[in-house]
């Protein structure tokens, strides 16, 4: 009798655990998809300049690990990727003033690559969705 009770308790616990895990993976599945697609885009479109570790290149090309900058400029990242960047920026306390070329990417691809960047190189800023990117792209300067 006792034996059966133990089994029942263990299986209930297992079921609850499974439920929690599957719930979690529903939200993280989308993140994982964004992240892995973004990794591929990063390799083909960004890595040459920013490096495979996102470390940039001396004072010529900025690193992508400045979480404060990424947070502060959250709504202009999509525009920067889509249309490039000119002028002086400050990253990790260093000044950069080279031109970044525009990347012809679709809103979905931009969302994926930002999600990859925002959660690599020491950044932990979560997902950026295609809807957010589409909204941001409407307000490019």
């Amino acid at each position, binding site marked *: 009798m006792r034996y059966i009770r133990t089994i029942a308790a263990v299986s209930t616990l297992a079921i609850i655990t499974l439920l929690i895990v599957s719930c979690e993976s529903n939200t993280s599945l989308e993140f994982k998809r964004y992240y892995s697609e973004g990794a591929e885009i990063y390799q083909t479109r960004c890595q*040459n*300049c920013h*490096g495979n570790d996102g470390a940039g*290149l*001396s*004072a*010529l*090309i900025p690193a992508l690990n400045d979480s404060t900058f990424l947070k502060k400029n959250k709504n202009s990242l999509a525009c920067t990727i889509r249309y490039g960047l000119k002028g002086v920026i400050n990253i990790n306390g260093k000044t950069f003033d080279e031109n970044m*070329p525009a990347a012809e990417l679709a809103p979905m691809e931009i969302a994926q690559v930002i999600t990859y960047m925002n959660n690599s190189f020491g950044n932990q800023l979560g997902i950026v969705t295609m809807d957010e990117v589409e909204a941001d792209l409407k307000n490019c300067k």
Partner: protein
Amino acid sequence: MRKLVFGLLIIAAYASCKSNNGKSTLPIYGSRKAVTKIVDGKSVTDTVYQTIPQFRFVNQYGDSISNKNLDGKVYVADFFFTTCPSICPQMARNMLKVFAAYKNSADFRILSHTIDPKHDSVPVLKKYADKLGVNGNTWWFLQGKKEDTYSIAENSYLVAVKQDSSAAGGYVHQGYFVLVDKQKRVRGAYDGTEAKQVDQLIADIKTLLAEPDPKTTP
């Protein structure tokens, strides 16, 4: 008897491995010809190898740099331009590794030739070097007439690439790092965008630095 044969086989295998991995000499690229001279009444045949011909460019400090500045030096040459968005940052990142390894070696130089001299003036090259974090006289960024740069690239530095590849033309834009020995002979070409090949280059530079200095003949 069997044991003996087996032992010999192991030794042979070991020896062949050793000669492959820890290779002590590098190939010599380019054309070559046999020259027979009379030395002490005897005729002696020598092989004369292709070398980098005379050149004159200007570096990032505005100094004139000629082939004479490379006498007795091991050096790496490459071709780039400062506004190149594709492979150049990757090349610069890798060349910085080479620079870091040998910047204090008096017998070593890096020559980065711009293929866009119209834009890459001396001040532009200086600014680029500064931003890369390159100072001193180990790594020179050279500017000259476009046709001079292309001519020396295609006819002299990239002979190794031409020899090893069946692809036609366009070598100048492919990001090669060319290794030249103390006698100005081309000894290797490495893909400057590939970290592994650049590691090999760093090892091969050491091999060439250990070669004896050339005789100070003409």
